């Protein structure tokens, strides 16, 4: 299919971009285009205007900001995956970025784009949620910070307001003693996750001091496996971890599609959480 007619603007500044969005409620931001263009081509979306943010340098790059890493919204998945700053400061993001689709898409698709698209099947939302990232949105009204827990509102819906553009995300550095893993379960290499588990685990004296677990594609938004996180806190490493991970699917409402029914997704969430936690904790 080919898209319906739309206007196209390529602003030179964030202010201009914000204005273009604020003045037209049917306008859409075009970043890497890896999610938006298929929607246009299938005529599932009919935006009036595409606001191409590809020329906005302030959205680009990855920056070490001391206690956190700031990943610009226009950083591509490939940049994120290869960035020394990301690999040192928030390695889970780099680990997961390597699982996004295929190399061609990783070179075009952007970190911020996949987050703002708010697809719970995307790999990045659960990761940023698990790491308690802070979203930085800009508009004519100025800058606003949104905690990850408040950013994802519903399926394909974020809390970005009219005229607001995602500038980037602050990912807090977790310090010493943390291990990470992203466990993605999919049928083919390029496919979306049927279920994904992002785990950050802090070890201390043979036990788990703290665990943060984000789940991909287990509901209309990415979710934290809070019950498992609590159960794991202070738990000694061993077989009992599996027990704690049995709670991983609690309070989730996974979707039903051709690849999996909800009960299978819940089962996978439990098995994969166990694997992710064990790997993150460095126990084979």
């Amino acid at each position, binding site marked *: 299919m080919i898209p319906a007619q739309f206007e196209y603007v390529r602003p030179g500044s964030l202010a201009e971009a914000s204005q273009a969005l604020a003045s037209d409620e049917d306008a859409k931001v075009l970043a890497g285009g890896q999610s938006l263009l298929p929607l246009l081509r*299938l005529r599932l979306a009919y935006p009036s205007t595409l606001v191409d943010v590809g020329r906005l340098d302030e959205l680009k790059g990855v920056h070490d900001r001391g206690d956190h890493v700031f990943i610009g919204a226009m950083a591509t998945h490939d940049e994120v995956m290869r960035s020394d700053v990301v690999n040192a400061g928030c390695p889970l993001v780099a680990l997961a970025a390597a699982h996004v689709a295929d190399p061609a898409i990783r070179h075009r698709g952007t970190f911020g784009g996949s987050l703002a698209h708010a697809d719970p099947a995307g790999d990045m939302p659960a990761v940023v949620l698990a790491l308690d990232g802070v979203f930085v949105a800009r508009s004519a009204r100025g800058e606003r910070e949104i905690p990850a827990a408040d950013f994802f509102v519903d399926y394909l819906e974020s809390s970005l307001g009219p005229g607001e553009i995602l500038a980037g995300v602050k990912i807090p550095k977790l310090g010493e003693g943390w291990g990470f893993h992203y466990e993605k379960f999919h049928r*083919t*290499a*390029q496919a979306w996750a049927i279920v994904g588990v992002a785990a950050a685990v802090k070890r201390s004296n043979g036990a788990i001091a703290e665990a943060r677990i984000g789940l991909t594609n287990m509901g209309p938004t990415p979710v934290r496996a809070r019950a498992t996180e609590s159960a794991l806190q202070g738990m000694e490493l061993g077989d009992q971890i599996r027990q704690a991970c049995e709670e991983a699917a609690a309070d989730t409402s996974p979707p039903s599609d051709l690849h999996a029914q909800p009960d299978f997704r819940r089962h996978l969430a439990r098995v994969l959480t166990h694997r992710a936690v064990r790997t993150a904790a460095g126990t084979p």
Partner: protein
Amino acid sequence: MDAGLVAEQIAESDQINEPAGALEVGRPRKRKEDARLLTGRTQWTDNITRPGVLHVMFLRSPMAHARITRVDVSGARELPGVVAAFSGQDFAAEQGSLPCAWPVSEDVVIPDHPPMAVSEVRYVGEAVACVIATDRYRAADALEAIDVEYEQLPAVLDMNEALTAESPKVHEAGNKAFSTKITSGDLEAAFRDAPIVIDRTFRQQRLIPTAMEPRAVMADTDGESFTLWSSTQIPHVLRVMLAVVTGIPEHKIRVIAPDVGGGFGSKLQVTAEEVLCLLLARKLGKPVKWTESRSEGNLTVHHGRDQIQHIRLAADADGRIRGLQVALLADMGAYLMLVTPGIPLLGASMFNAIYKMDAYEFACTGVFTTKMPTDAYRGAGRPEATFGIERVMDELAAELRMDPLEVRRRNWIKHDEFPYTTISGLTYDSGNYEAATDKATALFGYDKLRAEQGDRRDRGDPVQLGIGVSTYTEMCGLAPSRMLGEANYGAGGWEHASVRMLPTGKVEVITGTSPHGQGHVTSWSQIAADALGVPFDDVTVLHGDTAIAHKGMDTYGSRSLVIGGIAVLKAAEKVKDKARKLAAHMLECSPDDLEFAAGAFKVRGTDSQRTIQELAFAAFTAHDLPEGVEARLDSDATFDPENYSFPHGTHLCAVEVDTETGMVKIRSYVAVDDIGKVVNPLIVEGQVHGGIAQGIAQALFEEAVYDADGNLLTTTMADYLLPSAADLPTFTLDRTESPATSNPLGVKGVGEAGTIASTPAVVNAIVDALRPHGIHDVEMPCTPERVWRALEGRAQEGARR
């Protein structure tokens, strides 16, 4: 032109010829076509344009089954850039009915199949109207302005239900398209008191052929004659059929299949879009073009497979097969297209496969449903048959607690028994199942893997190992015309070639085959180079344009080399016969005194010779031709084989099944194929790689899914999963060589072997891994969810007891 100078240059260039004995056939030549194809410097139909070309888009039915009560295209006609818009009614008088060339039985029902629906739609995606505009964007916009009113009719989706008396009807004549039965031997006796009877039902899921290049059509006219470019496998058949369907005389139609990016049988078709583009060009007097989107293709490229196979096998206690009974339901979809009803019947003589038995019965009922019609898809009927028998052989082995290779050994035709006439009546000319199997088991490390499997079972490892066997054969080289006639097929199975000697000694081969990825330009060059003793690079191959390659039966069914390649060889031999007469005249000797080697005729026992290039030039100048020799060496040949060819082989697959997630990972895959003599081992390897990948895809990934209302759910590649290299193991390939006796090159064809063999190898491996869990089958594709549910189902049963 100075004849002497040219002749001298030709003689010089001749010196760089390969030394005698360095045959082209058998060399792993890189493909001549690849640089061009891979860099996109090529001619896909969509890249070809004509001045003032208009773009066609079709409005397609959103309903599986409905009466069309009103179509209003006036809204579309008013939009900017729109040149015309038509409903099916507008074409009712001229569009004819899409052809079915294979009325397989006396009782076959061939319903009227208008290219654009007029009064009723019978599957989601059926064209109901079209827009012709100055560009595709405007055409797509205009589709949204067409108003269609439907009166919904009940969808017919399940084959078993479709055959009940209460079922709604797809066509007035009912939902049964045809039924056939073939019996050989005393089946009743074979099953009576049989110590072992295996009774299984398997489902061959519906697949969507996914060629890299989507379909595309362009049609143009000068007011009198017509040219149609199409991404088709069958330009020659298409030309005949377009003439029959539209009434445009055949000699006024030229069909061109330019470079074609894959087909797998899906472009072995006469499509609605081809007929309609031709008629639109006639109506508007302008060139028109249509290129499908991938989603449009998933809906409306003919689908493949879709059978329910009920198989019963009777055996003695020592594993010897007594009898085999096969009953198929084959989903035709909504209409019978070019060879739709023949597809399941291509498996009719293949369920007995490589095995000896006392009795055999094959029955098949074709069923209409409100889905996209099915038709040829890589292997066409033979993968289904091979899957059925190879799965059942493993079930027999399990029942006997016998190694699956051993149960096959006890039943297969031994190598010293060839030629062998099977229970279904085919005569296999050559083969050596023992040799292929021995080679495969050695490469695979069969015994070591069995030991590891035992270890994992004993340990209760959550990742279980399974080993799958597939000792397949197939009939290919479609087909001896006489046998096609017996099967009531509407055409012959011969192939045609011309070899032209150009004045400079270069060679043009014109082939009736229509390559769409097979590398015919390379392989035919190798055959011609050997036959004529000319350098490989001096040969070019022309194809796919009915004005250039005027005769042909095109490319499908692993026929091109086995039939078309032989036609090239025969034509080249005729060139040589003509050249011999001329050489004898020039050398003033008898033709019998000449020997041909390294591209030259030489008088025996002397140094006097004339190269084929010199002879080509002498024929061109025609200054001194002997009586009865015309001014050209060019020759034509047509080859029609006496028999099918029968490639075979042993494929072994090891899978790791994660019993916690249901994920199947192929750990190793060994394929030892016997395809007779090989022209180009590199091309063979490519065919086997692609073929295995496609068969694995059926086992693990692909499935066309319709919902309860008859909507296709798998319209994108996010839903219809195709594996990529990242999802496949490294294949270990080897060959044995039992030359075919039905053609002078001893070749058998390799286009479909990998696909036919690999699906049962993978599923057998999965079931083998899970047998200790009480699992006897997993429906294809064996997704993680299906494997998990199979494991869970067993667990639940255990809990209830």
